[in-house]
């Protein structure tokens, strides 16, 4: 085996890194009018990476870099969606960032770096590579938020995110160091083996686990570690909110799976994290859904809605079964698709000097443009989990896993809390359909964003009619590594 062969599983990431360097370089020689070239290159790079991932054989797990890096079914599928999602973010953002003087090479490069970080997170088979990926993602996001230097809100959001993010990273590292102390290894598989053989110090392990779960809770934005989410979502420029609110959730899911299931998945520990996750999940769904009702800012409302969705996502993980993991993965993919549409719509309705981020800005959208109103209706119903949109099947599969694990009461609680959630999604539909418009301005959007939002909205409906393939894909993907 040559050295190059052992890099093969990481080929898509290596290619993306090369593309980042290319964009960085090319952008230096471009004038502001030609900036589209670097955007095009960035999007092409992301999509080409997705193409490479499609090409990759992920039927068996393949390791690279001395087992620190793995390409398996789960990472492959998630990375594919990550690349597509970040490319979609760039397309949605084009007009928005142009009007806000953010249309610079750094923006594209940072987005690509964030994508790279997420891919590393999805593929980490070693605590260090996982942590490396996480930091690459986080640092890119911090600076993206702060790019709008003259906005006090954005700067504040970036500071908040940075301080709390650093704290969470610290917790994670502390937890990881304890796991290392207990097992003597940072390789996930090795950790799992040591724990399985009963060689690890159990008190130390549980202690480490608590810190890891707290760190994960921060990164996911689960209650009680959710404080940063609403402020950051609201304060960041909307295109960055779109970035934060979409693809990183996919990576965070992979992160949870790698750490909790692959490394610390032994039965004795699973019982521990299961009970912690139940608390996180129920609190997230309750506080997320209830607080969202009181919001008048749409971005903030969607932030609380994200919190509740992350709670729902944890339900699948904590059922601790392959069905549950598959269901959670399906849930997170569906959530990302829906969130892209939701924030994408805010971007689309915003224009120079005007942010369509308050609920009132959606008043009478059906009168202004029935097609956008219809798409937003699909997006909202999907978030609420009302059939025939795909969000329903995501909730169905997670609930199925929960009931299968014998936690019927938890399923009932989840269902009742999602009823509360339905209220505020419904309120936005009410505002769009039943009220008169206050903002008479025509909606101008580029053909690319227009096409994308239509495809995005229709995908939510079409996947709601034929969800089988995506469900099977997710179910299949999580099966492979075990």
């Amino acid at each position, binding site marked *: 085996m040559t050295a190059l062969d052992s890099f093969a599983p990481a080929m898509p990431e290596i290619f993306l890194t090369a593309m980042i360097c290319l964009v960085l370089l090319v952008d230096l020689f471009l004038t502001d009018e030609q900036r589209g070239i670097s955007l095009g290159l960035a999007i092409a790079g992301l999509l080409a990476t997705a193409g490479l991932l499609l090409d990759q054989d992920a039927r068996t797990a393949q390791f690279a870099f001395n087992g620190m890096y793995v390409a398996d079914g789960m990472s492959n599928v998630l990375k594919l969606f990550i690349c597509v999602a970040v490319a979609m973010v760039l397309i949605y953002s084009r007009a928005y960032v142009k009007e806000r003087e953010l249309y610079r090479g750094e923006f594209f490069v940072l987005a690509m770096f964030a994508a790279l970080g997420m891919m590393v997170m999805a593929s980490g088979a070693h605590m260090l590579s996982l942590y490396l990926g996480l930091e690459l993602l986080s640092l890119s996001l911090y600076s993206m938020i702060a790019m709008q230097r003259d906005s006090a809100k954005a700067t504040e959001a970036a500071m908040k995110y940075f301080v709390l993010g650093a704290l969470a990273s610290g917790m994670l590292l502390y937890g990881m160091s304890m796991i290392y102390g207990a097992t003597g290894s940072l390789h996930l598989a090795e950790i799992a083996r040591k724990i399985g053989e009963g060689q690890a110090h159990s008190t130390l392990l549980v202690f480490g686990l608590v810190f890891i779960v707290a760190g994960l809770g921060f990164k996911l934005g689960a209650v009680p570690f959710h404080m940063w989410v609403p402020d950051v979502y609201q304060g960041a420029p909307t295109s960055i909110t779109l970035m934060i609110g979409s693809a990183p959730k996919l990576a965070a899911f992979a992160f949870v799976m790698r750490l909790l299931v692959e490394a610390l998945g032994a039965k004795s520990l699973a019982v521990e994290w299961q009970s912690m996750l139940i608390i996180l999940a129920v609190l997230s769904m309750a506080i997320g859904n209830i607080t969202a009702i009181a919001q008048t800012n749409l971005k903030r409302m969607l932030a609380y809605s994200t919190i509740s969705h992350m709670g729902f996502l944890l339900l699948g993980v904590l059922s601790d079964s392959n069905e549950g993991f598959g269901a959670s993965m399906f849930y997170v993919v569906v959530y990302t698709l829906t969130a892209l549409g939701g924030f994408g719509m805010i971007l689309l309705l915003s224009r120079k000097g005007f942010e369509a981020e308050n609920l009132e800005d959606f008043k009478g959208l*059906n009168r202004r443009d029935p097609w956008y109103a219809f798409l937003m209706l699909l997006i909202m119903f999907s978030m609420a989990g009302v059939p025939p949109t795909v969000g329903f099947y995501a909730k169905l599969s997670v609930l199925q896993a929960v009931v299968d694990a014998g936690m*019927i009461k938890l399923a009932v609680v989840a269902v009742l809390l999602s009823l509360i959630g339905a209220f505020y999604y419904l309120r936005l539909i009410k505002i769009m359909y*039943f009220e008169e418009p206050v903002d008479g301005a025509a909606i101008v959007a580029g053909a690319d964003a227009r096409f994308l939002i239509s495809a995005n909205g229709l995908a939510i409906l079409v996947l709601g009619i034929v969800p*089988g393939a995506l469900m099977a894909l997710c179910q299949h993907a999580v099966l492979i590594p075990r």
Partner: protein
Amino acid sequence: MNMPLLSVVVWVPILVGLLVLAVTSDRNPAMARGLSLMGAIAGLVVAIPLWTGFDNAAHGMQFVERSRWIESFNIHYHLGIDGISLLLILLNSFTTVLVVIAGWQVIQNKVSQYLAAFLILSGLMNGVFCALDGVLFYVFFEATLIPMFIVVGVWGGPNRVYAAMKFFLYTLMGSLLTLVALIYLYNASNGSFDILTWHQLKIGLTAQILIFIAFFVAFAVKIPMWPVHTWLPDAHVEAPTGGSVVLAAVMLKLGGYAFLRIALPIAPDASHELSGFIITLSLIAVVYIGLVAMVQTDMKKLIAYSSISHMGFVTLGIFIFNAQGVEGAVLQMISHGFISGALFLCVGVLYERMHSRQIADYGGVVNTMPVFAAFFMLFALANSGLPGTSGFVGEFLVVMGSMKVNFWYAALASTTLIFGAAYTLWMYKRVVFGAVANPQVADLQDINGREILILALLAVTVLGMGIFPQPFSAVLHTSVNDLLAHVAQSKL
């Protein structure tokens, strides 16, 4: 049978509805109307082969279609009908045609969206009546909320937003627990969402009762039963005429149908166990809501309460578990579909001219609208259960069935014949008879050809079903008897 008839019945209205949305806009409402009418008629025409091809004597489901849908959960696209579903599908398809014609002039705002919503709704409701897979059923059942929510909220009256939100949240609340029950059944049956498989599934009593309650909440809200009926008067009053018609004529029947298709056969022991409770609620609805209807000053509200009272009859008939009762309940559902639809159309006719639903604003309408008064009379009498109209058949059967079970059930149930007559005819008297009350009434124009057509179609059906109910009940016999035989067997 090679043609997938049921799929056609479900999808033709939905696809035409989407087509209306796609190709017509507010600038050419005429095209939207024409296309929708064709779609609605096509929906009725494709339902007719179901009626002609239906084998009254056959047991089990007919016109069955089954193909894989979502493999990882073993969910199938599984359709099939028995006599009960057949009648409801015909009722639904028939009502859709009327609703499209009824909205011809009065709806001038966002015409294509209005008509498309009704067509899509019609297809979805047909889907509920055909679905034999738990998830498919649930998807159709829930999806019907969306078009109705939009219809009430966009084209409704002054308080429409409140009514639409209440309608949606109430019914969603009911059905979410159903979802948990469906998932429980999926696990209990080793991974099947097939409703017919669930019918055979053995379940312990505690589990049955919990499952039954989960279903009960959803279906009781939908039907609606006292005391979870409060969304209905609001929704009815605020909805545009077409919305009220569909809501009363078809949508309420989703609940009754679901009891017969899902709750009873899956949890028969729990149904027996809890029947006393449900019969009590039903009788309260019949008597108390009947009295509530009496004091209403708003015509639509009065008819809405009358609907709840009549639906009390349906649940009573279902939960006395004998052939007369269940058959009477189904016939009552069908007949109520025609009669309440007709009454809401009559109120719509008046409202379009006077923009008031208050009984006090009317009086002496017969002097200016004699043709209309005649039709209104017929429907008012049918609503009070006059023999010879369809309203009589179901009520009579249910009273007869309940007499077999308990004299007092029958005695209380038959008070509806008094109360029903009292509130309907008293309203009729105050609106139609007497001297011309005010100049607006004096200026009223009698109904035009389009309105005569709709009301005449309904009048013929109401009388036909009343005088010659045999074709309707013949379709039901086998299905109802099979159902009762199944429910009589304990699953413990």
